[in-house]
């Protein structure tokens, strides 16, 4: 029954004290929020803190949500973005941002082929490092559009900017990522060559 409700309906019920509605909304939205925080910060601890803070914020300030300004999902990403930024400022964890997940093993999906699994792990680590080293605006665009697979419109609503801004940031971020991967992981097939575009 509750699973058929929209996010907005669940939020309204939750703010009226319906715990089941709140639980349903949490279970539906905690994954994307957690992954966004994880991919932005590179730290599972920060991601869990942010997830908790985002939903507590929703409880306390959820009445300020206006569906005409965007979807609940975009709103939660916007809140999570601010909490990630705040957590980064508080902990000064630049180190965490440039070296993702010390316990890398726990992030690995078990591969049937161990060699392929190691290759994937190396690729993932190299790409994540490159993503985390991007300036924040570009990183947000990559995480939301490429990793969270949000539409440009939803990403723009979450970041409070125009769709064109998202497009240009994404384009620039891709160029930077390719350059970083060429420099840091030339062993990754294909990134060793010159990827300059021909504009003739």
């Amino acid at each position, binding site marked *: 029954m509750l699973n058929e409700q929209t996010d907005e309906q669940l939020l309204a019920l939750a703010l009226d004290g319906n715990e089941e509605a709140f639980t349903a909304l949490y279970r539906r939205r905690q994954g994307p929020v957690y992954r966004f925080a994880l991919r932005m910060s590179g730290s599972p601890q920060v991601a869990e803190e942010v997830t908790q803070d985002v939903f507590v914020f929703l409880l306390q300030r959820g009445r300020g*949500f206006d569906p005409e300004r965007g979807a609940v999902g975009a709103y939660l990403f916007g809140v999570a973005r601010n909490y990630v930024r705040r957590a980064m400022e508080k902990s000064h964890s630049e180190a965490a941002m440039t070296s993702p997940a010390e316990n890398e093993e726990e992030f690995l999906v078990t591969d049937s082929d161990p060699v392929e699994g190691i290759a994937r792990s190396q690729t993932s680590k190299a790409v994540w490092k490159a993503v985390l080293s991007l300036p924040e605006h570009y990183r947000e665009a990559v995480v939301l559009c490429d990793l969270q697979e949000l539409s440009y419109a939803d990403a723009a609503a979450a970041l409070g900017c125009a769709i064109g801004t998202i497009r240009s940031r994404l384009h620039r971020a891709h160029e930077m990522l390719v350059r970083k991967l060429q420099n840091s992981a030339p062993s990754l097939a294909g990134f060793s060559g010159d990827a300059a575009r021909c504009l003739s």
Partner: protein
Amino acid sequence: MTCREFVETAESLTPLQLRTMQTGDEAMSVHVRECAGCGRWLESQRLLGGALQVLRTHTEREAGPHVEQAVLRAFRAQGFEPLASAEPDRAAPAAWRLSRFFEFGAYAAVAAALIVGVFLGARMWRDSHSSSSHMQAQVTGIPLQADPHASNPGHANEGSGIASPDSARKSANPEMAKVAPVGFRRSQSAIRQVRPANIDRQGFVALMFCDPLMCSGDEQVIRMELPGSASSSAEGGSSQPVIADVVVGEDGMVRAMRIVN
């Protein structure tokens, strides 16, 4: 397809979409085969898409159960009493905070308009209240602001600048106006009630339309005795004099009148 057309087409797709694209666009495939630069660029974007896909898969996780428990504890502790304030929190997205600012501005403007409206309404009510008490006094025949100079028209002309009965006689028919004298002033608001409806509650009939600026100022009510031939009732042959109250403005022009007898 030119290189620019190729780039425009390819840039509308994300790296993940480029990676999964099975060269469905024949023109793009042909161009990639012909142009080495665009081929390299497409290949790098596809590789980037693949790498991002790997990262996406490896970070496809969810928060632990202890987070859910903590959030639910916060929910139960919330109690859902009325929240202290709707003040936007620092964590709210910037677009929301900005629009909340304008929303509060709109609320403030509406509140200011209400305050001004209440103030003006109270003032108008006070004016109308004072004018109605004027009217009541007039109906009962008690002049509230009896003009001390009314019995002395010449003095009234000199001192207060209010039209004297003499000047009223000049502007009305001088032959008709024989007697004057009940002088008391009507307030401007009382006069205002005469004008719009042409006849007011006291029976005054507006005799002319005048510019509000010209009609500003005090008026004077003068009781006059008119010859019976001047009234319409006199057409029947009555020769009895008619007593009328005439409202005379500062400029000596007659604004309104009513037949008393």
